[in-house]
């Protein structure tokens, strides 16, 4: 592969999981208490996708990475102060709600529309990355729907590893039941890869990269287009945080084995 990949990563912000996430009813439907003010992080699965994309681009000359984010632009700006330092990429912002209560179909439509408008994107070299799940809206269907809208039918879900072979094909490891992987070989781009955790660590911050990224990101954030999400037809009968999962315990000096036992006991009830 001499020309490199055009990798588009779909991902946005979610509230920092350490915050108090208390569902409330707002005029626009369910929301989180003080949602606008809650500190955010990049959705962990999208984060894995972004770091895998950055690594792939770095090792394949001529590649380029875009991060397409649907979220409130002011909050995305704050998030970029961290994410922009991780890897070189170009940001495309779609201004809209990143709450977990929006319709996946509408989100997929808005994201696909934004991707179609990216200048200079070579669809024949396109690898569409994203998370296989999300910390805020875990319907796990958005990536597939974007792929369908863009006419990409080679889709891989729960990906943990991608190897670009010398013949241009892609070797992909997808998670299946029982801790096993399904290995697939795809002829090459275009393809959709919805990542699980991947296997690369989060890169350390690099302010030089951040400074370079931010020069383009600030204008991108300023000129973000509204997502234009249609009013949801979904009716929420009730919304609540799973109480048991929110019981935070702070422990010290416990070996991994003990932690595993603890979790197992918790799962058994």
């Amino acid at each position: 592969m001499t020309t490199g990949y055009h990798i588009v990563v779909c991902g946005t912000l979610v509230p920092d999981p350490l915050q108090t996430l208390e569902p409330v009813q707002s005029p626009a439907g369910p929301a989180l208490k003080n949602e606008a003010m809650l500190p955010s992080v990049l959705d962990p699965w999208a984060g894995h996708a972004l770091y895998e994309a950055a690594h792939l681009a770095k090792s394949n000359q001529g590649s380029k990475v875009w991060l397409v984010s649907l979220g409130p632009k002011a909050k995305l700006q704050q998030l970029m102060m961290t994410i922009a330092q991780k890897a070189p990429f170009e940001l495309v912002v779609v201004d809209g709600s990143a709450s977990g209560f929006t319709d996946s179909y509408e989100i997929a439509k808005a994201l696909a529309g934004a991707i179609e408008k990216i200048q200079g994107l070579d669809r024949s070299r396109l690898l569409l990355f994203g998370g296989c799940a999300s910390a805020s809206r875990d319907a796990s269907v958005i990536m597939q729907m974007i792929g369908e809208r863009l006419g990409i039918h080679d889709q891989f879900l729960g990906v943990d590893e991608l190897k670009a072979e010398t013949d241009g094909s892609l070797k992909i490891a997808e998670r299946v039941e029982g801790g096993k992987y399904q290995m697939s070989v795809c002829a090459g781009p275009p393809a959709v890869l919805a990542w699980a955790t991947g296997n690369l660590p989060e890169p350390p911050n690099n302010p030089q990269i951040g400074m370079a990224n931010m020069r383009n990101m600030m204008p991108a954030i300023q000129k973000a287009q509204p997502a234009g999400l249609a009013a949801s037809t979904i009716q929420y009968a009730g919304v609540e945080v799973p109480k048991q999962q929110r019981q935070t315990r702070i422990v010290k000096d416990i070996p991994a084995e003990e932690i595993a036992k603890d979790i197992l006991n918790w799962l058994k009830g």
Partner: protein
Amino acid sequence: MDTTKQQKVAKETKEVKVTSEKKPVLSMLPNDDVRQIMWRFQDRYDLQMVVQSTRSVARGIVARLVAEGARNTHEWNDKKQQFLTALDEAGVTAVFMDPEEGGFMAGPKNLALALVAYELSWVDAGAATCSLAGNLALAPIHEKGTPEQKMTYMKNCVPPQPGEKRKVWRGAFALTEPLPYVGVDTGVVSGKMRIAEWKEGKEPILQVDKRGRFITNMGFANFVTAVVDSDDEKIKGSCMVILEDGDPGIFDKGSPTLKLVHQLSSTHDPVLSLKVPANRIIGGYTIKDGVIIPNYNHSEVIEAVFRRTRVTVALMSSSKLLSAIEPVIRYQRQRFRGGTAGQPGSPRYDLGLQMKEDSLHRLIDVWATGEASASLGFAAARLFDFYDSIERAKDKSFSEQGIKGPRAQMKALKQPQAEALEYLELSKKPDKGKDKARFEKLGNDTLVQFLINDSLANVLCPACKLWNTGYGATMMREAVSLMGGYGITEDCPGFLGQKWMDIQLEATYEGPEAVQRRQLSLTMTNEIFLAQFRQWIHQMREIANEKPGTGACTLASAMELWLWSLEHLQNAKDADGKSVFQSQRQGALFPFTDALCWLLASRYQILDTLELEKKGPENPVLAEALPGFVQFFTDLCHVQAARTAGEVAKICAELVYGYNRHPSWDGARECCFQGDEVDSLEGIMPGMAESGRGKSDVIEKDGSHPKKAGPCVHFHGMETFIKLRAKLDGCLSGCRLAKDRAAEALTEVMIPEALDYPV
């Protein structure tokens, strides 16, 4: 009902309506959006990124090290080395450098370094010290070094980029020496240099001998910027010199200092005896009549360095106080959970210790102090960013005119002083009556602007170092006490016990409190500073007019009292006829400098709150929560202004009255009524004999008098002081209501589920 009655009822109704009005509520703890506005970096994404980078290291590896007990050894080890590497990788080490040296930020970096110190100290100040000490080693080179020195050392201290194979250099700054030499009195230096070899046409070789004490970063430093004095008639005066571990001779790191604090930083007592070329003298040298004359003596270099780096130290203490808020609130709320007494949903379960007013009020005091000290510190950091360019322009101008050395510069700055005062005077006037051309001319005059900003920098720097660390230490103890026994354990959430200990060092290094008070005692009487101070009083009154709840009026009254006291004390004599305000009379000068610090901190806190109110609406993230933040911070300002007023009034009263001797009964006949005088008036004014004795000091025929120390003091000449003080007392109205409101907000504010760093 008659009109007057109707008006009265209407007025009462209005009053009732006002007092029962629901105030906006503080929804969450202040986030980055709030801080960026308050501390004025909402438009600086480079700084915002630095904050995030530093935070990731602080709340990641640094917190883990502290939690794992890495502070429990004085030795520098591989474990501690991890966070240095993390700082390198995160770009924090390179913040100090300019882009041409391998850094990523152009321009002055005082605010950037202040933010780095703030973020690291949020978890551990030793880590912050480690980071800052590297910059401190480079600072002499950065401020006064030759272009070659700058390029060599700054570049080598930038961590290698991915793919680059070289070792990063790390430096230590060696000023302090074994007692009884350098410490507070930096004018005396025992480190020596002499000429070891000087061949015709070659660079002279110096023999440098320096023993250091409490030298930070020494455990891993491979170069040292050391203060030394001449021990050779062929070298004139003192200087700072760069020593490398590869130089011939002894580069012994010495034994680690057995610190009780800041154990994540490396501190040793090194022994250095090395031969170095003379071009290692920082700033270079000239040769005159066969004598080496360093271009800068050590005092010139360290003055330029410390006046900036002390600000970052001040902010380390502010960070500690503000970092204590969340853990204390969580502790207070959860105090009774899990017991049998309070069930979920009960006030005891939900609020815990927050049911008690005392817990809340004391935490408000901690928070208000933290806010005020951060406001003062960041204001100083911003000022230095602004001042840097003016100072460089001044240096350039002097260099072009051939004005060299402190004395010549001082002489050259004499004439523009009047112009600086004129500029300040003009700035007060409304546009209509102002000579705009003159105002503009003075506004563009480098020396005038230098003098104005210099006078301010000379006050703000020692003030924030003194107050933030000194009073901060007192309030940190308060924060620890709010955690009960937990506060003094190693695993106290937020490491409050460690922070309490650490803050004592911050009050000491880079010049202990006495040094800061001494400097302030000289700089606070600068007429250019005082002219600005007078303007601030008007500014506070104007703010009070617009925003009565901020405590600005209280503060203005306290500032007036301080100013009157200063003018009084400058001319006052004590009971023995000695001047009260003289440089050696630290008992009078030093408390007065403390009073000034209180005033400055409170002023900047108010200004930061107003900035939030003004700029907050531009940030959509804040829109909904902004009124709650503004209300809460306004109440904190009021609380702090009242506390300030109390401190200032107390100090001023003690000094204004304290140097007058209390009258005694000996020789009191001249100043007191005589018993027979009062009795003789009884015939004219019945009851005089009794009431006269009740209200005045009366000496009876037999010499007896009321049983007390002496006749009451008369306050001739103190009428204005009494008036100002009485006014100030009245200005405290409402401050406790503000405290109640702020305390109530603490019971409602939403906090995260858990601390975002390990314990």
